[in-house]
């Protein structure tokens, strides 16, 4: 396997406002031109991970890690200037809420071109127009001179993606890029992202809680729960033969048209991080005494890595019908 583009080692993030860590020592790699998805429920630390990689949490959280290597350099040791250059040229970021991501009082084009030198701007502007056309914005030459409030949510998100691609990044961090949009626009944007990925050899870190989205574009998937990675593997393997009870429940909770399923509702709280044992123990249907006393470590089982004491029995016990989850492509 070649050198990974991004390698996160033992990342730990603690918000100043909270006593417990939001992300507890996770590690993963992203290969060049591949797509890694992070899935999990709200509060599982997936967005925090994405933001911490781009070092956007400086003012609100303490970030610790052995290393975050991007193209061989440690992002955590980058100076302000290097960081600016990195964000401008190498890493593109798209946020969840397209409307809040725009400064409504500044024109679309000016806002995206701010970071470039005056001499560079005319050329970049042409490029931005062509990117905007590529992401499906009609009359891009006019839209570039409009104010963001004149655009719809979908268009704002498209323009944001065009802006993120402007510096020719090799890594795109997409923090739930489609969750604020309606379903037709979602599908559209996902196709667009896959196309762009193939065309430009762009690697992607996709943060999502939507498994349908993930199965459509991600090659590998990381499942997070309460700030820890509980399962990781190739997306299709992970979805079709999940080994962790949480992943199984996550997949099962996806509503389907043809097979109405009963969704498990949790009434008990997410376990406190400081307690011993498995973080999922108090919600797990397969809990055994060992789960409460000993923390399962992430181990490689076949193609996937899983952190569960009973991984070998999960499929049988939960009776996962093979291929029950169909991706909606």
């Amino acid at each position, binding site marked *: 396997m070649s050198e990974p583009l991004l390698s996160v080692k033992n990342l730990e993030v603690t918000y100043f406002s909270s006593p417990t860590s939001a992300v507890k020592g996770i590690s993963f790699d992203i290969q060049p031109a591949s797509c890694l998805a992070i899935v999990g429920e709200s509060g599982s630390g997936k967005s925090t991970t994405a933001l911490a990689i*781009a070092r*956007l949490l400086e003012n609100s959280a303490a970030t610790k890690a052995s290393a975050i290597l991007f193209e061989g350099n440690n992002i955590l040791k980058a100076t302000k200037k290097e960081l*600016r*250059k990195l*964000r*401008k*040229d190498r*890493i*593109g*970021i798209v*946020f969840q*809420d397209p409307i*809040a*991501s*725009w*400064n*409504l*009082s*500044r024109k679309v084009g000016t*806002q*995206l071109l*701010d*970071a470039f030198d005056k001499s560079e701007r005319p050329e970049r502007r042409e490029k931005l127009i062509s990117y905007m056309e590529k992401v*499906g*914005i*009609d*009359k891009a030459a*006019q*839209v570039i001179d409009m104010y963001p*409030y*004149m655009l*719809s949510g*979908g*268009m704002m998100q*498209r323009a*944001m993606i065009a*802006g*993120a691609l*402007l*510096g020719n990044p090799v890594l795109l961090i997409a923090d739930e890029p489609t969750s604020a949009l309606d379903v*037709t*626009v979602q599908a*559209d944007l996902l*196709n*667009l992202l896959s196309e762009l990925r193939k065309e430009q050899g762009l690697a992607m870190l996709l943060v999502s809680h939507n498994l349908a989205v993930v199965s459509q574009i991600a090659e590998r998937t990381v499942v997070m729960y309460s700030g820890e990675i509980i399962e990781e593997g190739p997306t299709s393997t992970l979805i079709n033969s999940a080994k962790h009870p949480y992943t199984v429940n996550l997949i099962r909770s996806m509503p389907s048209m043809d097979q109405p399923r009963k969704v498990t509702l949790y009434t008990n709280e997410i376990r406190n991080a400081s307690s011993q044992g498995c973080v999922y123990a108090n919600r797990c249907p397969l809990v055994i005494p060992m789960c409460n006393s000993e923390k399962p470590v992430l181990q490689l089982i076949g193609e996937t890595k899983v952190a569960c004491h009973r991984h070998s029995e999960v499929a049988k016990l939960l009776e996962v019908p093979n291929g029950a989850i169909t991706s909606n492509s």
Partner: protein
Amino acid sequence: MIRTGVNFISKRGRKSSVSQKIGVSFFTTFVILLLTVILFPGFFAPYDPLELDVINRLQAPSKAHIFGTDEGGRDIYSRVLYGTKDSVGASIIIVLMASGLGTILGAIAGWFGGKTDFYLMRIVDVFLSFPYLVLAMALAASLGRDMRSAILALILVWWPSYARMVRGQVLSIKERLFIRAARTVGASSYQILFWHIIPHTYRTVGVRASMDVGYVLISLTGLSFLGLGAQNPSPEWGLMISNARSYVLASWWYSVFPGIAILLVVSLFIYAADRFSGVEK
């Protein structure tokens, strides 16, 4: 692929009631009128404001002198018009300078935080801990008794409240997502400060500033009245009222007309600012 058409919601958030619209157009007309008088007083005034005509001293209002004349026989109507520049013009300049200075320093304090914030805000505290008119008098007196020092003194007294207000605004604006988004496209700290943060304070600062023109006018004419601002024979309104004190019983018109001018301008600015603040909410 579905192509998103250019559908505008161009007037989102811009609904304003009829009375607010009247308020704004009223304000605009009023400011334009004032600016015209400030720039071209000779166009409206029938007499020279400084020309003495001692034979006609302290004349009651008549057809020739509609506001009457002062102790030197000068036409009060012409003097009030020429005085607009000294009183209102100077007030506008004071407010522009004070709000500009306050906005920049307040934004720097809020944006950079830490020590910068601490020291700037302690300076602001020092200024705000004095009654503003007392401080303005002390500053104006120590800078020398003329119009320029009165203006400078009022700028120094007025900027801290803007700095405090803008700092608070910046603290909330800098947490908004578009600031993070601007970072991700690689904008520098100064770019974000001047292009993304300061423009978002314009509205609050604008409303405050338009109201402050009235208050500054009262202070400035007050300083002149006390002899710390404009000096004779300048047609500044506060100075005119100050001169009129000796004749207040015999010649009511001498103090009343400059007084009405002050009252009118101050109340109109405050009323207009009040209307202004209701728009776009």
